[in-house]
């Protein structure tokens, strides 16, 4: 057991997996000599060689398209998209191909591939280095989408994603890389994809969220605790599939649900979670469901006042949860 950052947990898991299974290859832009622009893959090329940790040409459609080909031919590719904002040149390959290959071949072919990509803002990344893109992919049956919120989960979810027979998108919040630390066991372990995690039991309000926002919600819960407001926090961990049971359970328990994500409000996961609760737990609710999310503007601006206005912060979560508790 060691204390690690979120970033180190991902790197050490990649290392452990590369050692465990020689079908695994890691590739993408700058992942080799440079160790990735965030250093997630640092040292991996030195250990595993240029055939298993590959600096690819700057072309995302080719990165994902070749990963699909390698996967159907027996490898376990773990391609990296340098920033999730740059996943769009590959969207045809991900949505039309990876997601549909099993279905269209009537089960004959599968694409065991994990696409890793840093996402999220608040890091002066502006419009194209701050985006949350998970909802695009969560919309597509055939894909799985996981977003770990702690170093511990980062390891267990990555190992599960690599072991999965289907394509998994694994999103890593950039602001989590170095700010989140925690204990991570040395041995390999799996966290099932599709299982939410109750981070904190509470009585008055349920905050349902994922990724970096989990740590923000925990901060908000501490503040509110002192005011006598008891907050329950459910970390979805996977936004496709969703853990419907856990979502309904917390909604029924507190009767007040605050859904939080940094991704845009409209069409975000909050809408789906709200619909599930409305369909299956409406009469348990004591207040309308509240969604706190990134505003519906095309992307996060760079200038500090605008970036701040965009970001979901612990303060904004505290405020929204307090208001909901008083409803």
């Amino acid at each position, binding site marked *: 057991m060691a204390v690690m950052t979120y970033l180190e947990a991902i790197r050490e898991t990649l290392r452990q997996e590369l050692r465990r299974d020689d079908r695994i290859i890691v590739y993408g832009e700058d992942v*080799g000599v440079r160790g990735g622009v965030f250093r997630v893959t640092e040292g991996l090329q030195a250990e595993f060689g240029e055939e298993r940790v590959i600096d690819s040409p*700057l*072309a995302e459609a*080719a990165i994902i398209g070749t990963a699909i080909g390698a996967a159907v031919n027996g490898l376990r590719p773990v391609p990296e998209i340098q920033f999730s904002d740059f996943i769009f040149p590959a969207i045809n390959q991900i949505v039309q191909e990876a997601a549909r290959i099993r279905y269209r071949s009537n089960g004959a072919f599968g694409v065991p591939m994990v696409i890793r990509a840093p996402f999220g803002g608040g890091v002066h990344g502006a419009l194209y280095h701050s985006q949350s893109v998970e909802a695009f992919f969560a919309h597509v049956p055939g894909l799985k989408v996981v977003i770990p919120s702690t170093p511990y989960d980062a390891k267990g979810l990555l190992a599960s994603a690599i072991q999965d027979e289907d394509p998994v998108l694994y999103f890593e919040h950039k602001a989590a890389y170095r700010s989140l630390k925690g204990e991570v066991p040395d041995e390999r372990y799996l966290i099932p994809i599709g299982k939410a995690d109750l981070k904190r039991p509470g009585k008055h309000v349920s905050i349902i969220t994922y990724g970096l926002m989990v740590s923000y919600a925990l901060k908000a819960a501490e503040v509110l605790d002192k005011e006598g407001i008891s907050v329950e926090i459910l970390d979805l961990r996977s936004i496709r599939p969703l853990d419907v049971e856990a979502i309904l359970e917390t909604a029924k328990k507190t009767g007040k649900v605050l859904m939080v994500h940094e991704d845009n409000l409209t069409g975000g996961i909050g809408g789906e979670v709200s619909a599930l609760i409305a369909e299956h737990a409406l009469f348990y609710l004591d207040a309308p469901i509240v969604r706190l999310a990134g505003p519906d503007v095309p992307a996060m601006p760079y200038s500090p006042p605008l970036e701040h*206005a965009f970001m979901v912060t612990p303060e904004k979560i505290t405020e929204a949860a307090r208001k909901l508790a008083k409803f």
Partner: protein
Amino acid sequence: MAGSDALYGLGLDTTKIETMYYYMVLSRALDERMWILNRQGKSAFVISCQGQEGAQVGVASALDPTVDWVAPYYRDLGIVLYFGMTPREIMLGQLAKADDPSSGGRQMPSHYGHKERHVLTGSSPVATQVPHAAGIALAFKIRKEAAVAMTSLGEGSTNQGEFHEALNFAAVHRLPLIVVVENNGFAISVPQSKEMVVADVAAKAAGYGMPGIVVQGSDPLGVHQATLEARKRALKGEGPTLIEIKTHRYTPHSSDDDDRAYKTREQLKAEKEDDAIVLFRQWMMDQKLWDDERDQALRQRVRHEVDDATDYAEAAPYPDPKTLWDHVYHS
């Protein structure tokens, strides 16, 4: 001073030569100031033109900013200055202030755009501007206007599908388009040998039936001449040209990068021997077009402009947070 029209047979007079030199020096000086602001904690991000000024000014000086359009990329400070963006405007963008003409402080620095100056707004995903420039050229062609579109990008970015699709489209429709590849040998840390197998990006033009030309960024006049010829072809209806400029990147990829992991200091030193600014000045002196005294005067003028731009931008206000909601759609 010899005001020779015959300089390199380019029809360049001494004023034009001096103008080219001025823009190279100004680009470098503004860029150096950006790094100082970054180290002072006043600017979170810098991405540089340093090393590529000769390439950029060589191209821009062969275009006509009154009619032509450019769709540049993040290193093209020399191009956008030549097209009329002012040092103050550049610094407003660098410091993300409300009056930044490129984006009102919304985009990262160096994501240039200026409608009045014919500079198309650009994004971060590489190579997306190439089809846009082809479309701008298509509109020129349909309206029978005597103008060209120029777009530029790095060599690593020529691996994107959009680059290839746009070249093919432009060639098929014989569009008045100039595609400039500023080949600095690296895509962040990845050397050209791992980006592509061909030695010259210009070779990619052959697949689309268009000329691909190689010139040296340390020879701005050579770049200028190649661009002039491409522009002539474009205006005659002979279609697009791909110009590859061999150049260098003197800084890390950006202020978030550290290039020591992938570029030796010896290589960097050798690249700096091939600095267009130094070589061009030497050439001007050899031609008796320039002397130390004039150089000092020019550098002083540039320093003053950079100081003024910095002071102006530092004093300028940030955007109001309420404007977050502006311009999502047409009012």
